[in-house]
């Protein structure tokens, strides 16, 4: 028997290779170098790799514009505008996180490059998920992404909660992966392939007399994804993990996991199972209602800001799911637009939480934020903008993100669903505003000024300016998101 080596289009997988290559280079450097690799070198490597990936994204975009979307490595990896934009967002989030983590590592006296290696490796998994055209590759990406994050969650060895978070994440994530791969197996059984295009072609040209196997498989896939994006009722890990993990890691988790998981979810539900729209839509409907309402309501009763942001991100996951529910080009574009705008905001928010957390990363009660804007007007105002953007007020990107998904939903006849989601936003307003009020409160306890190192300040400024500039002028981002999804939806 002759082994056929599939042809490889290297430009397609170059971002993944760059990220993984940089991780390996750091591993080798730390093993070969005499003494420790300086932190600056590690951070620079991460930023260089992510920047290189962004440059490659540009050439990929040109390539797609010239030759159209293409698949490679036995149709398992896809190169289209959607993957290019999603990869770009991941690379951007990684750069931002690396800058925040740099200052954090100095403050916490963490030397060594393990953090950076794991972050790079994890991100390469997320990149793979955005490009996957095969259930097995999605699984692969998911595992690479998660395993790195399990370790990162436990990175703060001094705090027992960090290990607890990692263990919880590991156990539940392991379950989710198992459920996902079982779902993939069942879908394979029903359709004879794990390739998304083939599944789509098969379902489009055949009528399943006994669709039970496919439904079961699809449902299990959905459960696997719901775990990753922390949709209610599969969200239970997320508050504990967000709280326990070192704060820069939480920021990374909240951004790249969402981008990767939603990119893959869109491909599975729209590209592969698009013909089964009427079957998965009601399930998603219930999932969205629960996710938005429970996320917002439970956030209100939290006193720990990291838990609050965890529930807030659950609420956002519900909103992003709205775009998937729509099942149209507009919906997919809205989903992409939402993650593009949400990722920088959430990383910048966690950057501020990292700063306020102080040495030991322990001060995360809302009282810490009393009068922050009085003591440090710029930092406080920046945080207020980030919170208001997450709340979705006009003149921030958060408004247009919500506008985009809600428009897509209303366009496909989901007025009631849109209304429920908006009511959850009104509930969420309660805790975002309470936080803003705390920032500006007068009766603040005497607290030390929060030190703002330069590179973290740059990240925060980037997040704030991004949300304000594109909040006033959303045109370019909308066009980008729309362009990126035109070729993608069958």
């Amino acid at each position: 028997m002759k082994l056929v080596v599939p042809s490889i289009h290297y430009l397609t997988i170059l971002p993944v290779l760059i990220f993984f290559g940089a991780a390996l280079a750091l591993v080798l450097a730390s093993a070969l170098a005499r003494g420790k690799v300086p932190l600056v070198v590690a951070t620079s490597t991460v930023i260089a790799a992510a920047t290189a990936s962004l440059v490659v994204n540009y050439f990929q975009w040109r390539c797609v514009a010239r030759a159209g979307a293409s698949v490679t490595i036995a149709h398992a990896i896809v190169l289209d505008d959607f993957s290019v934009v999603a990869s770009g967002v991941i690379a951007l989030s990684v750069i931002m996180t690396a800058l925040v983590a740099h200052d954090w590592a100095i403050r916490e006296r963490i030397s060594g490059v393990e953090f950076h290696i794991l972050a790079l490796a994890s991100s390469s998994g997320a990149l793979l998920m955005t490009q996957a055209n095969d259930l097995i590759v999605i699984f692969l990406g998911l595992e690479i992404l998660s395993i790195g994050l399990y370790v990162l969650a436990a990175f703060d060895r001094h705090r027992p909660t960090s290990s607890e978070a990692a263990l919880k994440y590991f156990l539940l994530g392991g379950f989710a992966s198992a459920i996902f791969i079982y779902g993939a197996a069942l879908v394979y059984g029903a359709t004879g392939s794990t390739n998304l295009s083939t599944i789509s072609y098969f379902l489009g040209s055949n009528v399943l007399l006994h669709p039970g196997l496919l439904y079961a498989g699809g449902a299990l896939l959905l459960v696997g994804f719901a775990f990753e994006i922390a949709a209610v009722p599969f969200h239970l890990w997320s508050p504990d993990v967000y709280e326990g993990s070192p704060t820069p890691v939480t920021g990374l988790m909240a951004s790249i996991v969402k981008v990767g998981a939603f990119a893959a979810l869109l491909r599975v539900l729209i590209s592969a199972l698009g013909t089964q729209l009427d079957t998965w839509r009601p399930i998603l409907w219930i999932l969205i209602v629960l996710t938005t309402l429970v996320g917002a309501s439970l956030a209100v009763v939290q006193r720990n800001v990291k838990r609050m942001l965890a529930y807030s991100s659950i609420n956002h996951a519900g909103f992003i799911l709205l775009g998937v529910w729509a099942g149209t080009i507009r919906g997919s574009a809205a989903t992409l637009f939402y993650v593009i705008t949400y990722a920088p905001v959430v990383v910048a928010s966690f950057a501020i939480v990292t700063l306020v957390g102080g040495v030991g990363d322990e001060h995360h009660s809302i009282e810490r934020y009393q009068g922050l804007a009085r003591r440090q007007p710029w930092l406080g105002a920046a945080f207020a903008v980030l919170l208001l953007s997450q709340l979705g007020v006009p003149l921030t990107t958060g408004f247009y993100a919500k506008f985009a998904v809600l428009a897509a939903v209303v366009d496909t006849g989901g007025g009631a669903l849109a209304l429920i989601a908006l009511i959850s936003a009104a509930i969420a307003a309660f805790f975002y505003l309470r936080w803003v009020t705390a920032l500006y409160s007068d009766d603040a306890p005497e607290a030390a000024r929060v030190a703002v190192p330069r590179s973290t300040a740059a990240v925060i400024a980037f997040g704030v300016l991004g949300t304000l500039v594109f909040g006033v002028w959303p045109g370019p981002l909308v066009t980008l998101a729309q362009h990126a999804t035109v070729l993608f939806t069958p």
Partner: protein
Amino acid sequence: MHASLWLTLLLVIPLAAAIGAASTRKVEGRAYVVAIGASVLELVLSLVVACLYNDHVVGAQTFDFATRHVLAAPFGLAYDVGVDGISLLMVVLTALTVLLALLGARVRRQEPAFVAWMLLLSCFTMGSFLSRDLLEFFIFFELTLIPSYFIIAQWGGKERSKAALKFFIYTFTGSAFLFVGTLYLAFMHQHEVPGSALTFAFGALSTTAMSHGTAVWLFIAFAIAFAVKSPIWPFHTWSPITYAEAPTAGSIEIAALLAKLGTYGMLRFAVGLFPLALVGMRPVILTLAVIGIIYGSMLACTTPDLKRFVAYSSIAQMGFITLGVMSGSTIATVGAVLLMFNHGVITIGFFLIIGFIEKRRGSILIKDFKGLQGPAPIMAALFTVVMLASIGLPGLSGFVSEYLILIGTFATHSWWVVVATFGVVAAALYLLWAYQRVFHGKAEGANAEIADATPHEQWVLVPVVVLIVVLGVFPKPVLDRITPSVQQLIHHVAPSGVIK
């Protein structure tokens, strides 16, 4: 120069001044000077616009100074401004309110931030009234929440956090319905012609064909948002605490101005876009309005503090405005638009005087006052003028508008007017009674020591008194500007309702 530049200037001036004022942290008092200068300029500009306004621009449906630029086509986002007879008065009121609020209720603590928020609020309110595009209107409508929130939460009374939060959440929830309704309407319009672009332009949307049921649902969605903002009974529960806890300048902005966004939106959007719904919904809203009139009047009699007193009397007055807006009669609708302006001016007067008293005594509880008329005769006189206008004394502005509303509505919905007229009597009751308790009798203790209105305070109230008297005696120029636009609106919605 394109005529729309006037309106763009109306938006840019307060915005630029807000940025300018916020960046003068170092120099004491400079922010205030910047803010006053900008507000005066804004008022002059708005008066120029009001004088130049021409209701016969070809193809513009009584809109003037109009322009439209699409900003983000996939979202249907556009910059689309213009004024007609209905928004014209509101534009002037916006400029007037911020100027008088700044002049009469100066806040010295963190002044740059305060005046910056006030100017931003004026900019966003102006934007709402100038919008001819539903999405643009919604964006400005939502944006007004942010400055109001910060003004209440930072410069308010003891319960300010609670009041600010309540205000924000109520309005935000209300506008959720408006948002979904807006999207639904826009997509319905887009799907009428396959392949057409998404648009939120008011003129285009008002031609959308829809079934009766759809119209009713959309009307309800819009009406909830505007009823919360107005506030119309039973959506009013945020208003007493908000008016009471906000700093005086904030109370003025919210009660005199932001509340008008509710009735304005009700008239322009809820009524203007869904004429089919009116047959069924008119009696409902009219009933709520009448309940609001009676309820507001009754609670105004019993409330213990002066700011809540104005809040409840405002609920009653907003009931009158809603009555006119929903009447389907041209006369009553013109009256309602005029009352929006007059009530704004009267409310500015009330809150300014209450602010003066609060500054002297540190209290707004009615029971703390007695016989202020003796030591402060000028203040009492000014209060009397404002109060009599609010009661609707002939010769003062309140009379003209209330009279128009009542006779206009009587022709179309007589029974509601029969009940609502009791509200006029009740207004006399609660206002005179409150006046008696505060100003009559023999002043003792701290009340006897109270200083009369200073020249500055008198000058601030001069525009209020002048407007009250002039609009009471000679409202014709204003009515002439309102009427064509209202006629056109009523004509647009008439086939489904009563024509009067």
